[in-house]
């Protein structure tokens, strides 16, 4: 259920404790040699039940790892102006890769020392009546991650473009990088401190009280999001509504007609605020 590294316990993460299908594979004669070796390795490590795809996954990992190491070693060899790759280069390549990808947790005595220092400070007192107890805003994911453009915007000349100034909201959100549902999180990760991260789709204000946030769904698919925003505010319902939707649709359909549109969108991007 919870994968553990193969060198910690004997149950490989990929197979876990689940009862997978028993190995139903072609007879060993017809399997390539690498696969036979892999099966033997799994047997030696005590893994008896695994799905047949595990062999492929392990082989793929092995192949990828070995080629990465050898490519790195080649780079080091050429850097050292050697004519051929030798064992030292391989050793160096392995070492660098280990430090980068296959790091291991800190050693125990280091942890004990750090823990000792951390545990010396007394527990902080709790302020009463503080509302939701969250860290300072810069450590939270509760700030908005977008800005709205100002409402005063020059009317563009293209027929297919949105002419209503208010729909600059739509222009903003129709940037090509349409985030998927997972993206706000990605943006969160990327933007450490200071860059606000999305919360609510409030049309007028930029700062959002931390207590509210609609689900990610409303913020992300940008085009329907814009429409939703517009719909919420009753003053925009009406003839403009239809105009809006068709524009959205036309934008979508002609998105690959491209370069002209892109340039416009670049122009529209980010007013100086």
């Amino acid at each position, binding site marked *: *259920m919870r994968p553990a590294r193969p060198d910690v316990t004997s149950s490989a993460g990929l197979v876990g404790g689940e009862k997978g299908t028993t190995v139903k594979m072609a007879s060993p004669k017809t399997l390539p040699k690498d696969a036979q070796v892999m099966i033997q390795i799994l047997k030696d*490590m005590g893994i008896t039940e695994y799905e047949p795809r595990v062999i492929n996954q392990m082989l793929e990992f092995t192949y990828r790892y070995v080629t990465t190491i050898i490519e790195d070693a080649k780079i080091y060899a050429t850097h050292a102006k050697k004519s051929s790759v030798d064992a030292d280069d391989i050793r160096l390549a392995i070492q660098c890769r280990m430090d980068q990808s296959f790091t291991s947790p800190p050693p125990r*005595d*280091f942890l004990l020392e750090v823990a000792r220092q951390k*545990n010396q400070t007394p*527990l902080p007192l*709790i302020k009463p009546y503080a509302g939701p107890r969250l860290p300072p805003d810069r450590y939270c994911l509760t700030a908005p991650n977008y800005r709205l453009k100002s409402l005063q915007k020059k009317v563009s000349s293209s027929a297919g473009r949105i002419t209503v100034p208010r729909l600059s909201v739509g222009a903003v959100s129709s940037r090509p990088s349409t985030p998927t549902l997972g993206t706000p999180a990605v943006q969160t990760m990327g933007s450490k401190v200071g860059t606000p991260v999305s919360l609510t789709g*409030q049309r007028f204000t930029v700062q959002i009280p931390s207590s509210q946030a609609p689900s990610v769904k409303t913020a992300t698919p940008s085009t329907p999001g814009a429409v939703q925003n517009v719909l919420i505010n009753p003053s925009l319902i009406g003839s403009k509504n239809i105009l809006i939707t068709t524009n959205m649709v036309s934008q979508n359909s002609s998105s690959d007609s491209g370069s002209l549109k892109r340039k416009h969108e670049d122009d529209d991007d980010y007013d100086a605020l």
Partner: protein
Amino acid sequence: MAAVQDGGSEPEGEKEPQPELPSDGSSAPAATPASKPEEQQQQQQQTLLAVLQFLKRNKLIESVDALRREAGLADEPDEAPGSEAGGGVGGAAAGSADSADASALLSRVAGAAQSGAASAPCNISFSSIVLFIVLSVGGEDQPDVSVVLSAYSQQGDPSLYQVYYSGLKKFIESVLDCHRAELSQLFYPLFVHMYLELVYNNHESEAKAFFEKFSGDQECYYQDDLRVLSGLTKKEHMKGNETLLDFRTSKFVLRISRDSYQLLKRHLQERQNNQIWNIIQEHLYIDIFDGMPRSKSQIDSMSGSLAGEARREANKAKVFYGLLKEPEIEVPLDDEDEEAENEEGKPKKKKPKKDSMGSKSKKQDPNAPQQNRIPLPELKDSDKLDKIMYMKEATKRIRLGPETLPSICFYTFLNVYQGLTAVDFTDDSSLIAGGFADSTVRVWSVTPKKLRKVKSAADLSLIDKESDDVLERIMDEKTASESKILYGHSGPVYGVSFSPDRNYLLSSSEDGTVRLWSLQTFTCLVAYKGHNYPVWDTQFSPYGYYFVSGGHDRVARLWATDHYQPLRMFAGHLGDITCTRFHPNSNYVATGSADRTIRLWDVLNGHCVRVFTGHKGPIHSLAFSPNGKYLASGSTDGRVLLWDLGHGLMIGELKGHTDTVYALKFSRDGEILASGSMDNTVRLWDAFKAFDDVETDDFTAATGHIHLPDNSQELLLGTYLTKATPVIHLHFTRRNLLLAAGSYNSQ
């Protein structure tokens, strides 16, 4: 250790990390009485001289001067280094006949300093000596980790290892029966350390032969470790393996009676080649007790962990296992409430209702912590309302027992294809959260009431804030749905936990973060970063505000929701922490680990107050009894063990499951323990009876020996099979209905 690894760049890393049990005064592995101060001085002196010799030999003059200045030595007598000095330092040096070998000497001192054998006062100077050495040598032939492993330098002729081991085997087989079981404990740690020594010193063929010859003799519950070892044939393999390094640096603890120990000592010191004696002194800690030697079954029940058993001192600290007093809340009585609770059923009369489990006396329970021992959040009005609801539900609670078993309602997750990795219920059983391998967290409503989000700010400004049902009005009806999906993690979600006030949800994931989600807006509020490795479990404190998380980095962290860094770090385990649970009084945290031990940590100061060994596999579930006195644990070996927190002993063993026990829960009053396992069953055990037997026993607390009655069959009240659904989570509702959750496994 940090200093040594970084080449001494951090001055504060210099301090020798205190061994986790500071009462190590008599930690000399030979368990000799605590060395007198003069002896310590002697050892220190000799080590210093040894170091000076080494430095001179390597022509590191400046270091010599610096060290001499530091140590305050006026002159340098010309003595041979490393003579026998009884303690760990001397013991390590004794084996080096080739004292001219500088690296061996370095490793002796380094190994000794790190293995913490020296008693506390010597620690600081030893580590500064080590630091000097490392700086002076400049790391030319001492890459960081090698210093850690260097205590495995040659103890003797590699080809003779088999002879030594067979010799010991023969001896142990020849002793009296009563001693044989105890002395057989030596086999496994000796085998591992000797094998690792051979591997470290590049005697690959001898290591393989040694392994093949003797690995079959070891106990069956060590087979997993042996398999890992069998794949480890070269020195390079040892470097990346954290568990192995920890195994090497921490001493394997054996508990042997005095008589058996005398026998052993006499035998090993008789012989000329006492290599085994050296190994024992260096790597093993023999906890001697006075009394009858233990039987095989007693030993088997307590052993199995990666570092042997727990020392007696580890379980001596006082644990406040009592519950905190419930605050007195005035409950407005309605007419429809049962009159059984109080005679005056009048709605106007207010009478504080006590929690059904709370103590009736006003006096402080001596076993309970002070109310303000750790700061806890105050009760808000909403919390008070919750408590009132709780008490009302408690009156309708069914009393369970061997005659009245709970009904079990099973929530099966379909179409998950083994992707369900964590489940949690709220305390009032109104919401279920599931953590999945596709990195999502989903929340479902168990009751017909749907899940709603709070309205956006514009809409909130429009509502009437003075109306009575303002809490309903802030919810946006348009967003009502049966379930909500929470996106944010970038790896499988291995732990979920609701806050007691149902406002927050925690989730911990393989991406190393713990995320706090709001259940009002269904968005992520905070991502707590600290573990840089998968976090296997997390749990909110029973009072909210604090939460604990534990993961692959072998450290459990205590956080508060309003601090972006952890408040406490609980370090000490040798393997990944797979399960973390709060004690009902929120003052202690129990962690179960892949090193097969359970540790109880004090939240106030981060100390480890209990170490429980006995499981033979990684521990995957923990449950505190509602009265706070007992702990139940389940692991991959299918056994459920019961522990008494006050005395620090194992008091019960429940055998019956055939596969990993992933879920454990006590009923609301502690009468029944429910366990759910990968073998698709839920089993109910009679907890009262299991703990009752214990009360009458006379604890041999001095020696810590227990005779566990083999009464699993009597305690088993029922076994309930699911068709093909492993049970991942169990939860007793407030009225003692048992809810279970798992994902249907169609294969």
